[in-house]
């Protein structure tokens, strides 16, 4: 379902471009809204959320999927925490579908999925490792790196139980907006994946914008 936003970028309190292969870590306060814009299209933004007051409570893909009875995320989805609490609402979305089953690329899983020689290639989980090492103030370590959302990524599931990595349904300028229901840490890897069509084999920047309300 496509739901456009009424917010204008000129009123955002903060805007930041995150290049492919880079990470973002920061706090979104309760009531604030984050927009992630796929600037050039076909990009995947691999994102985790934590309760800023107690990061042991975090975005739970399984609880979110179960509570909404649906595997895809879109406008109207409520992101549920590991303790069953609503963390963020997806309030606008011009892409139509986002994945939370496929997880994030890692150099180790790249060796399995593509070739043992791909170990050297940059990956989302490597970006997260650097993020948590460079920002110890958030109190995150590897055990907190859990199952994420892939904004803008299309992973169709078939009735007979298949799973496909389809070409993205995103396009330049498509965005998703989330309003926080609690203070959250946002940890995002702008995916550097070069091995499959989720990025069109061409990782590109995303833009983050934050509104106070």
């Amino acid at each position, binding site marked *: 379902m496509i739901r456009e936003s009424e917010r204008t970028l000129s009123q955002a309190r903060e805007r930041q471009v995150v290049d492919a292969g880079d990470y973002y870590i920061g706090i979104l306060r309760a009531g604030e809204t984050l927009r992630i814009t796929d600037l050039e299209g076909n990009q995947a933004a691999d994102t985790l959320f934590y309760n800023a007051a107690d990061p*042991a409570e975090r975005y739970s893909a399984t609880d979110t*999927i179960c509570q909404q009875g649906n595997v*895809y995320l879109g406008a109207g989805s409520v992101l549920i925490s590991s303790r069953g609490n609503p963390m963020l609402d997806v309030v606008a979305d011009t892409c139509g579908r986002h994945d939370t089953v*496929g*997880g994030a690329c890692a150099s*180790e899983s790249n060796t*399995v999925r593509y*070739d043992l020689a791909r170990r050297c290639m940059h990956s989302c989980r490597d970006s997260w490792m650097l993020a948590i090492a460079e920002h110890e103030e958030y109190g995150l370590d590897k055990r907190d790196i859990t199952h994420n959302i892939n904004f803008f990524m299309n992973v169709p599931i078939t009735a007979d139980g298949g799973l496909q*990595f389809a070409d993205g349904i995103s396009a330049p300028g498509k965005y998703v907006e989330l309003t926080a229901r609690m203070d959250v840490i946002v940890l995002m890897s702008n995916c550097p994946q070069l091995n499959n069509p989720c990025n069109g084999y061409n990782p590109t920047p995303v833009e983050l914008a934050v509104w106070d309300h």
Partner: protein
Amino acid sequence: MNALLYEYTMPGGHHWSLRMRRGNLLRLTDVAGGANVGMLCYNPENLLERYNAPDTLKAQHTFRLGLGNCLYSDMGRSMASIIEDSHGWHDTVCGNLSKRQCREQYGHHSYQTHRNGWTLSGEESFLVELGKYGLGERDMAANVNFFSKVISDDNGKLHYDDSACQAGAQVTLRFDMDALVLLHSCPHPLNRASEYPRRRVQVQLLTGDPISDGDVCLNHRPENRRALENNRLYYQDARPSFLVDGGQHDSGK
């Protein structure tokens, strides 16, 4: 020949954990039909390495687990392989029945009032077993739900198929790594039964055979061959026969 090492029947709504040794088999049997077995796995040498459902699904291009599938860790290795399966569809995306949902759906049957007949959630069961190894809620990843069939339609809407659980259904895992294995026999979170389904599960430990050239999991996907090669690196085994030709097999992407 697989020798039976140990046998235990878990009552419905209970939990257990054990150390599986590499090469041995874990066979689960849905004794009366309608069971759900939640399972999580950790590497006892490095508890930060654990079963990773997203990696497992995407590497094998599947939404369900069944015969031929390997269960991947987050470090690109096969923790276990499904070498026998008469059920055919096991869920790993729906997670656990939470304490809150358990009380709302089935009512509060406490230990004080119901003793071993209390209604325990999968979430509480895993927290109990995790604690025994110094782990906690931060370590609780998406688990496998054996014997639970969850179908997605084209719009992603999920359907729990409660007709799929037949008495005698069986699944056998070969452990490709040493593993801490956490099990519970609590209901699946999408089971809409109004009365707590209490279904016992037989757990058998058996000796296994070495991986042969014709192994169903090795040959299921080229990714599994590479994952098992990563296991070989981890344990620094001498090169096994199945990798003599095609060890650097490419998926032809």
